[in-house]
Structure formats: C-alpha cells, structure tokens
C-alpha cells in the first residue's frame, strides 16, 4: 500500500520537504516496501488534516501539538510517533516595532490577538502568566495568524502571538518586535502522528519515514543554506528568509521525556479553556516503538 502523508507546506516541517526533494523518503520506502509510493497531500492547517484522518484517507500527519490533541480527543485512532521539530524561538508574542510595551505585565487591558486553539494561544497564556496576568486580563482577539502582524502594524491591535515564518518576515523588517518567545516556557512542539491501524499493519513504512526524516533533519542542521535553496519552492519562502527560520528551529525527531511533559501541559491548558472536551492520556498517545526501531534518540 502507498504511504499517505498529510502535511502543511511550512518551514516548521522542513525535513519532510528535504527528504522529499532528496528522494530519501523514496529510497527508504523502496527498501521495505518496493511497491509502495508516497502520496502527498498538503493542507493549509491542522483541522482539515484531522478531517482527512477521520475519513480514513491518511496514514501519517504532520501537525502541531494542539491539532493532534484535538483530533485524539475527538476520537481519532492515532498516536504520536515522533516530533517534527521544536523551537522555542519559533513562536513569540510580538508588539509593534516602536511600541512602548516592554514587558508582559504591560499587556494588561490591551488588545492582544491570537489564533484561537493554536499552540500560540497556549504560549500567550504562559507569557501572561509570567507577568502575573491571565488571558482574562487582556482584550483577546481571535485572528488568523497571517493577519496579526499587519493588524499590529496598522495599529488596530497592540500585540499578538505568532509563529514562523510570519515571525521572521515581520521581525526582519522591524515591523514587529518580540516581547517574549517560548524560551523556557514552551518549546513549540510539532508532531508526527500516525493512524494506529497503519502502525499495526505497516510498521516498516513508519520506520522508513522516520529514518528519512532523521537523515533530512541532520542535513538541515549541517547545511542550512543548501537546505533552504532546496525547499524554498515547497514552502514558498525566499531562501534568505528561510535560512533564518531554519536556524531558529530544532529538527530532532526523537521523543524526550520533557517533550511528553510539555504536551501534557498543553493538554491541561486546552482542557481548562474548553478547547478539548475529553481528556487525552498523553503518555498513551505517544507510541515510541517506531522511533525506537528507527534508532532515534
């Protein structure tokens, strides 16, 4: 059977596109399943990936930790088999380039935008917590992430929580300034989830995918410039900007205990804010077998 991959065309998932361009994924797959090919579907966001999983159309998905938990909570039979990336600096609360706001404390009563239910939503809560505030202390505005920096620049809102590549694009033009990023409070985990039926029936394909992914992530760490040139088209970002983004990320797929702990924290946050209605057993959600077999550590 073909290996069906649902991904999003963002630099957060860069190794996937490197593995694609370098044909490493095809190579690995050919070793274990000569007749299988990769079927790619690109989605603009996590929710349609969940929908596609629910319709039984996907084997593996590349999503943020929040959509992954949403899907699991809604009843998808999936497991997290690896990280795609993490990068505390890849998500941040930003304010206008010349904004007087200097600390999270000063966000009190301000208009702060976030994409509801995104992992930046959680970051914002954590950042506010640092300033002794809660989400209720600001005027929370729900906006698609792409609209947040322009709205800050236009002066419609005071701050917002965003992630890559929007972050780098606007920060590099000094249009926005980072007030606080995930350093020390949120790693910004993105996951590789897989359908449990797929894991049971075709574990070798999962392993092949992880091997290729690992190889690609090491390549990026070693040759960020070359990697940026290679996948610039896939993620629709100019190589010079892309290099900056890539260097902010950590593309280690191995699952560490602190990663699981972070996902637990995220799960608690989401439940507390009604973003999921049923609890997810995070320990059970992580299935480390494929990663172990692929030799990730």
């Amino acid at each position, binding site marked *: 059977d073909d290996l069906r991959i649902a991904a999003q065309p963002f630099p957060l998932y860069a190794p996937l596109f490197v593995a694609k361009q370098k044909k490493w994924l095809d190579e690995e797959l050919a070793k274990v399943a000569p007749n299988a090919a990769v079927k790619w579907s690109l989605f603009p966001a996590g*929710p349609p990936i*969940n*929908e596609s999983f*629910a*319709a*039984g159309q996907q084997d593996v998905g590349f999503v943020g930790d929040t959509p992954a938990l*949403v*899907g699991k*909570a*809604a*009843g*998808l039979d999936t497991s997290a088999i690896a990280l795609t990336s993490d990068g505390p600096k890849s998500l941040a609360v930003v304010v206008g380039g010349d904004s007087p706001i200097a600390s999270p404390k000063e966000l009190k009563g301000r208009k702060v*935008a976030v994409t*509801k*239910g995104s992992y930046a939503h959680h970051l914002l809560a954590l950042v506010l917590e640092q300033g002794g505030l809660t989400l209720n202390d600001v005027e*929370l*505005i*729900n*906006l*698609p992430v*792409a*609209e947040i920096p*322009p*709205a800050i620049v*236009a002066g*419609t*809102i005071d701050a917002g929580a965003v992630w890559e590549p929007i972050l780098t694009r606007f920060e590099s033009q000094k249009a926005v300034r980072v007030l606080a990023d995930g350093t020390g409070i949120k790693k910004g985990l993105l996951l590789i989830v897989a359908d449990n039926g797929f894991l049971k029936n075709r574990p070798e394909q999962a392993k092949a995918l992880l091997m290729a992914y690992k190889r690609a992530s090491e390549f990026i760490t070693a040759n960020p410039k070359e990697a940026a040139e290679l996948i610039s088209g896939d993620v629709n970002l100019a190589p010079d900007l892309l290099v900056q983004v890539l260097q902010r990320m950590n593309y280690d797929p191995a699952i560490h205990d602190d990663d699981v702990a972070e996902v637990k924290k995220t799960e608690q946050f989401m439940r507390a804010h009604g*973003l*999921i*209605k049923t609890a997810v057993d995070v320990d059970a959600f992580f299935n480390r077998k494929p990663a172990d077999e692929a030799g990730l550590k």
Partner: protein
Amino acid sequence: MSAELASDARSAQRAGLTAGAARSRLGALAGVLPGVLGRAALYVALPVALLAAWQAAFELGYIRPILLPPPTRVGKAFVDLAASGDLFRHLGVSLLRVLEGFAIAALVGLPLGIGIGLSRTLDRLTDLIVQLTKPIPPIAWIPLAILWFGIGEAGKVYIIFLGAIFPILVNTIDGIRQTDHRHVELARVLEVTRRRFILQVVLPGALPNIMTGLRVGLMVAWICVVAAELIAASSGLGYLIMDARQMSQTDQVLVGMITIGAMGKLLDVVLRAAERRLITWKSTFSGS
C-alpha cells in the same frame, strides 16, 4: 364526511353542472383540507427521508461519527447550544451582520445597477472594475478589509457586502436591459421625466429580476459569513462553525450549517412575500 362531500360532488356533476361550478361550491371544504396536508407532506418528504437515511447509515455503521455524527447527536448538540443560549447569541450576531451587509449592498447595488442599466457611459466606466472585483473570493479580501476597516464590525460587514452586491447588481442591470423597447418608445414619445421613466417603466419591468437578485444576494451574503467572521470574531454562526471545526466538533459544525440554512430559508420567505406584494399586476405562470 369526505365520502359525503364526494357523493355531493358526483351528484352535482350528474345534474349537468360543470367542474367549474362544482368546484366553486365544494372547494372550500373538500378540496382544501387534504390538499394542504398533502402539500405539507410533500414539502417535508425529502428532508425527512434524508435524515432517516443518514441516521440509518450511522446505525448500520457506514459512517464514523467523528466526521459525520448522526442526526440524533446533532440534535442533541442543537438542544445543548440552544439551551445555553449560545446558539441565539451566535445567530443574532451573524444575522445582524448579514442584514447590515445585505442592506448596504441593496442600497448601493440597486441605484448603481439602475444607473448602469440606463447609461451606456456609466456602464463602460464601471464595467472593468465591477467585473474584475466580482469573482474575487471573500477570504482574499480579509487583509484589505482589516487594513481599511479594522477588526471591528465594519470589516466583517464589508466582506458580506462584497458578496451580496454583485448578484444584486448583475440581476438589476440585466433586468433593466430587458425593458420592453415598446415601453421605452412610449416613454420617449410622451417625453416622460427621467424619474417617471425609472419609476414607472424601468423598475416595474425589472422588478422580478431585481427580486431574484436580492434573493441570490442574500444567499451569497450568508455564504460569506464564515469569511467575514474570520476577522476577529468571538461570536456568530461563522465563528461557531470555524471554531467547532478547529476543535473537531463536527456536531456543532452541523448545527451551525443547519442554523444558517434555516435563517436563509426564513429570509427567502420574507423576500418572496415582499415580491408577491409588489407584483400584483401580473398573472404569473407558476408551474402545473
């Protein structure tokens, strides 16, 4: 009782009266009541059948509830949302936005459409802009809407306005272009004023088309409510749908869809009633 009336009808016919006479006497009772019930049954037949099939498909295990929950579960979500009052809040907010956007679209679209329909010059002047703007998806307008109108209500209403105005405009223009040239000649011969020409020749003739345009415009206004409520909304049916989708709560997505559908139907009924009030001079053909 129905048998009695039927025999009455038969004897009336035997007496040599025509169907016409018999009908006019008995119609009030015999014809009307079962007819109304029959019509109502016909009216709900298809939706009920679809619901039944949907529930059955679920019971038989053909569809997984994550993606398409059964009607019973959607019904429950509906009751929950309604009981908490959230549904009415969302509905009220969206309804206001849609009505505002639609009203502005009508207020701009009708005069503009009339102007374009009547004046070749105005037509040429506006054609390119109108035609270029028309097919642009509402979501693509979001950045500009935020830039021009901010994140308040105005931006959302603008998106809905953009969706509603073009059907109104196109139908109005086309309606006016269909004005009977014999009536135009008459108006020219009588040198009627521009005002009277518009009010008594052009508009009444174009009215059916204009009403069609309004109804399609209202439909597209609703279609745009999701895009509009991507702009910093925290309530509204579009928000409800997108939020529920974000959280994979398909039952709520369906509640949102059905509520929009019901609102659309309701407003359509209102517009049709208005149309019937306005067009009394015509014995229209209404199918057989």
